[in-house]
């Protein structure tokens, strides 16, 4: 287990990169604490897999250094860095049994058979694979294969970090729940440093203590799931996290009031904003209250998705989403109000601090 420092990492897949646009990864400078559970979240092409491969050593960055516990490992291969990685599509050695698969990384490192048997036994127990020990890995289901991939990392008690590259892509929804919670438990028990790459916000938020949101080769926000949900630093984070994403409405700010069409929305405190910036407020559907008071609303569609209802509507001519609890109804002449604690103010897409002491 180790602390991982990324020092001014930049990477381009082109041999002679000049402009910023040539870089798949633009300047990442960040530390991963020993024993932390991190998620790298972003749409495809945002550079998250590039960053993961730089950490694992499958890729050498064009610029910058990678440090494991202060030691420079930039030039080291994956085996030299002693990390484990679980890939999107399960990788198992077809001709080997489950036991042999898990023993493989140990045997490669010349560990004695008695020790191999003990460690593999423990790992299989942990992952509930014991019943399959003697089975050929090839014919198992995707979720078991993915457990084997994970097991090949866990079996090495000294791994510096375990990296995951969208590991639940091919897993059925029910099995996802099991694997996710099992992974979380393993992290709690053994405290490996884990980095998990995904485009799926649910996976990222539920797995990680700290989520790193990436967009177009840059980190746009690092925070706890709660921070990302409540206080997105950038409108992209507001849109990308949450389902449906945050409503972003153009406003004109005047002291402690935001004017949206003919409506006035109170802000937590007065802010000074230069007049040539684009100002917007962000409000999550969860904080849009539908009732008989507030701004008049035209409901265009009501989607019953079981445990809640999604209200799609227009407010002052702009599309807006709201969420209603199961069993709640939309009144005949619906009006909307915004819960003040859910209002965020954005200037040129970046969040403006409106709270004191934060």
């Amino acid at each position, binding site marked *: 287990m180790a602390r991982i420092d990324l020092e001014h990492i930049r990477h381009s897949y082109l041999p002679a990169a000049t402009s910023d646009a040539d870089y798949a990864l633009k300047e990442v400078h960040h530390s991963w604490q020993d024993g932390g559970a991190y998620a790298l979240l972003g749409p495809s092409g945002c550079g998250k897999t590039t960053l993961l491969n730089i950490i694992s050593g*499958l890729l050498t960055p064009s610029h910058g250094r990678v440090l494991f516990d202060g030691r420079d490992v930039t030039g080291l*291969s*994956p*085996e030299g860095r002693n990390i484990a990685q679980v890939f999107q*599509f399960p*990788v198992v050695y077809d001709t*080997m049994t489950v036991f042999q698969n898990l023993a493989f990384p140990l045997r*490669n*490192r010349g560990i004695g058979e008695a020790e191999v048997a003990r460690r593999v036994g423990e790992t299989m127990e942990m992952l509930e694979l014991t019943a399959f020990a003697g089975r050929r890995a090839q014919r198992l289901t995707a979720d078991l294969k993915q457990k084997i991939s994970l097991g090949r*990392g866990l079996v090495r008690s000294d791994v510096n970090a375990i990296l995951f590259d969208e590991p639940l892509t091919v897993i059925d929804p029910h099995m996802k729940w099991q694997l996710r919670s099992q992974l979380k438990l393993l992290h709690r028990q053994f405290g490996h440093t884990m980095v998990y790459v995904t485009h799926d916000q649910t996976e990222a938020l539920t797995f990680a203590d700290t989520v790193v949101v990436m967009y177009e080769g840059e980190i746009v926000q690092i925070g706890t799931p709660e921070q990302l949900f409540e206080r997105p630093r950038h409108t992209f984070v507001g849109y990308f996290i949450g389902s449906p994403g945050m409503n972003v409405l153009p406003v004109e700010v005047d002291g402690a009031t935001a004017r949206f069409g003919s409506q006035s929305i109170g802000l937590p405190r007065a802010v000074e904003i230069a007049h040539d910036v684009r100002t917007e407020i962000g409000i999550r559907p969860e904080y849009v209250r539908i009732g008989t008071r507030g701004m008049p609303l035209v409901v265009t569609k009501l989607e019953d998705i079981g445990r809640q209802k999604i209200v799609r509507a227009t407010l002052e001519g702009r599309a807006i989403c709201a969420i209603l609890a199961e069993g709640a109804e939309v009144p005949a002449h619906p009006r909307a109000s915004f819960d003040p604690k859910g209002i965020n103010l954005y200037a040129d897409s970046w969040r403006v601090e409106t709270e004191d002491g934060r």
Partner: protein
Amino acid sequence: MTRTWNNRAWFMVFPVLALVAFNAIIPLMTVVNYSVQETFGNNLFFFEGVKWYEEVLASSRFHAALWRQFLFTGTILLIEIPLGVAIALAMPRSGPWVSVCLVLMALPLLIPWNVVGAMWNIMALPDIGLLGHTLRQLGIDYNFTRQPGDAWFTIVLMDVWHWTSLVVLLAYAGLRSIPDAYYQAARIDGASHWSVFRYIQLPKMRRVLTIAVLLRFMDSFMIYTEPFVLTGGGPGNATTFLSIDLVKAALGEFNLGIAAAMSIIYFLMTLLVCWIFYTLMMRGQDQ
């Protein structure tokens, strides 16, 4: 499971079926017919039952040819399969050199059989041939028309030159289909090159290698043109393989019954060996 059902498809296949009937089934039945009859010309035939078969199976000439045939096929398989895999492994996985390598590899396959034989014949000539002359210059007493060992060496070398490319192309296709994640996982697991080959590349190449072995087996078992052009089966009977022996019997000695019986035995043998190979190599394989 993915079979598409459509009545009209059969009409499309019909011309091919007719063609196959004409150039495979009908000749085969003719051969079966010959193999159980005696003829003295003038289209006179007498039924002989299994006499020809007994004669062939008991003849030492057939045993010798058969032994030579297995020795030859075994030798070239043992050389061509490992060599082909080795070359495929050494080829670049991406970049501009891929197409250059592929074209170079495909070249020998484009040359007609008899031309290959003639080429090597000239090449191996002890006096003016590039190979023959060089070997003699090196002080090796090389003469493929006189010394059986040299004849064998030349034929095997020729076949390896001609056909290893096929194994290379098949093995390369198999290697290319392995996702990068496997190699990456193996690196992370600390696997040696040998382990990567043994546990990833070889299992993933299994299907294409089965096809390569079957193709090379069938093809070399029927080899005729190249040794015919190169050595004509000599010196003596040193390179008289089954096909050459068969043609000698049928055309050289006009022993139609014997030749037909040999053809049938020979056909059944190829079929049997292929089946054994296929079952062995596919055993335990996921369908």
